[in-house]
């Protein structure tokens, strides 16, 4: 299969990035090194190419368009210029995708989805949206850059103006950048104060170069993006959640508005009544050794589950991970993670693993 390339592919090559496949795209995995990029994001500012992510613009009322039944979050009480994290579910309550819904106007919405799910999401949306709503897949004509780190506000103010300070966590506004009016939201996937900047394809390279001129900003790849998100306990679609896992099992029930009707709600209510067969757990290993996707989870010599994500944590200097277990476990319980001859002792904990993130900082 041919991999897709973002408008920044030549910039990544110039910077000496190591490139690799992700969700059907050829993406930068690392530039200087994953740990250095991870630590720079926690202390300074990193710039991520996220042009691969999917973007849909929907014109139509939340209820009459059918959108309210497609996403699990409450749209009826959502203010304009607000973002909400939630899901699209199938009839069995399994997760078709996780997404962030932006309310631009009463009758205009932006849906931001995972790169690998663009086609599946579009099919699902078109199947369930009413005929009088208008859906545009804007993924190919626009780009997105994520600017993340404790000083990202100061960096961005220099380009988009000081009004950027007025953005609260999970809100957005329209700002003039490089002569173009576009959305900037105070959102991200790192746990640090940060922004997602939307821009037309033709301006992506110029914005990338402009932001990198600031000495506080360095490029970061998907390797650091993965360790940063895992330290926050954020799930990754295709790895931690998928179409056969419900948000209940993933511990993400708070992103379901059970007071309204949505596709998959019947199955969710039934599963709630019966109780789940597996639960997501978060664990720290007792060494620098980290488990990997698909390592088995044992307790008292009995196999009880599987690891979905695992990595060395640069902030905690030990292994961290997430997985599903079939037995009810609690914080402090001991488990063993196994693969072949490898046995790693671990202890259950709460998310986030890293507790000093600046994402929700106020001023």
């Amino acid at each position, binding site marked *: 299969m041919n991999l897709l390339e973002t408008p920044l592919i030549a910039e990544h090559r110039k910077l000496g990035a190591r490139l690799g496949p992700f969700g059907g795209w050829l993406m930068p995995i*690392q530039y200087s*090194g*994953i*740990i250095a990029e991870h630590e720079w994001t926690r202390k300074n500012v990193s710039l991520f190419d996220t042009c691969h992510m999917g973007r849909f613009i929907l014109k139509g009322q939340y209820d009459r368009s059918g959108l309210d039944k497609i996403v699990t979050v409450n749209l009826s009480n959502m203010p304009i210029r607000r973002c909400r994290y939630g899901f699209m579910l199938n009839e069995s309550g399994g997760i078709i995708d996780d997404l962030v819904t932006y309310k631009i106007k009463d009758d205009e919405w932006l849906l931001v989805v995972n790169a690998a799910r663009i086609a599946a999401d579009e099919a699902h949306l078109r199947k369930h949206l009413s005929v009088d709503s208008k859906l545009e897949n804007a993924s190919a004509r626009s780009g997105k850059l994520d600017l993340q780190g404790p000083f990202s506000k100061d960096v961005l103010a220099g380009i988009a103006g000081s009004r950027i300070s007025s953005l609260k966590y999970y809100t957005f506004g329209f700002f003039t950048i490089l002569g173009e009016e576009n959305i900037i939201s105070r959102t991200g996937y790192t746990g640090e104060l940060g922004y997602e900047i939307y821009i037309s394809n033709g301006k992506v390279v110029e914005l990338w170069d402009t932001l990198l001129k600031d000495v506080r900003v360095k490029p970061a790849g998907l*390797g650091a993006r993965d360790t940063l998100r895992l330290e926050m306990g954020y799930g990754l679609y295709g790895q931690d959640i998928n179409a056969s896992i419900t948000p209940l099992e993933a511990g993400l029930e708070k992103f379901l508005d059970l007071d309204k009707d949505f596709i998959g709600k019947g199955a969710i209510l039934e599963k709630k009544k019966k109780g789940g067969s597996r639960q997501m757990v978060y664990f720290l290993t007792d060494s*620098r*050794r980290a488990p990997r996707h698909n390592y088995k989870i044992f307790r008292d010599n009995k196999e009880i589950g599987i690891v979905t994500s695992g990595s*060395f944590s640069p902030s905690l200097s030990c292994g961290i991970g997430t997985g599903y277990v079939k037995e009810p476990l609690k914080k402090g319980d001991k488990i063993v993670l196994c693969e072949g001859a490898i046995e790693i002792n671990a202890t259950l904990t709460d998310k986030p693993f890293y507790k000093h993130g600046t994402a929700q900082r106020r001023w």
Partner: protein
Amino acid sequence: MNILENLLYTKEHEWLKIEGNLATVGITDYAQRLLGDITFVELPKAGDKAAQGKQFASVESIKAASDVYAPLSGKIIKVNTALADSPQLVNQYPYTEGWFVVIEIENEKEKQDLLSGADYKKYLEGLPK
């Protein structure tokens, strides 16, 4: 890519510095670059026996866990205990402070399987990019 002329190599990207019947072993600059940030190294214990071609250590980076195979058979005489707390030494100084173990060579004939610096360089050039 740094390849030292005075060392011997394997196709599994280990280097050996042979002095008398002792071989100091580590992984090459090429290997550490390929792995990226090394976060954990598991070494055998002093006194353990290594068998040529069999796994005797493992290396983990952020992205992957990899087995390391013994380049020669023999008794492990010394291990680099500094790697337990500072595995990044393998990235920083693959040919010096990032050494793994010292093996007491059991079978001189096995040395025939090792590559010279020039041959290892040629081998790397032939690998798919």
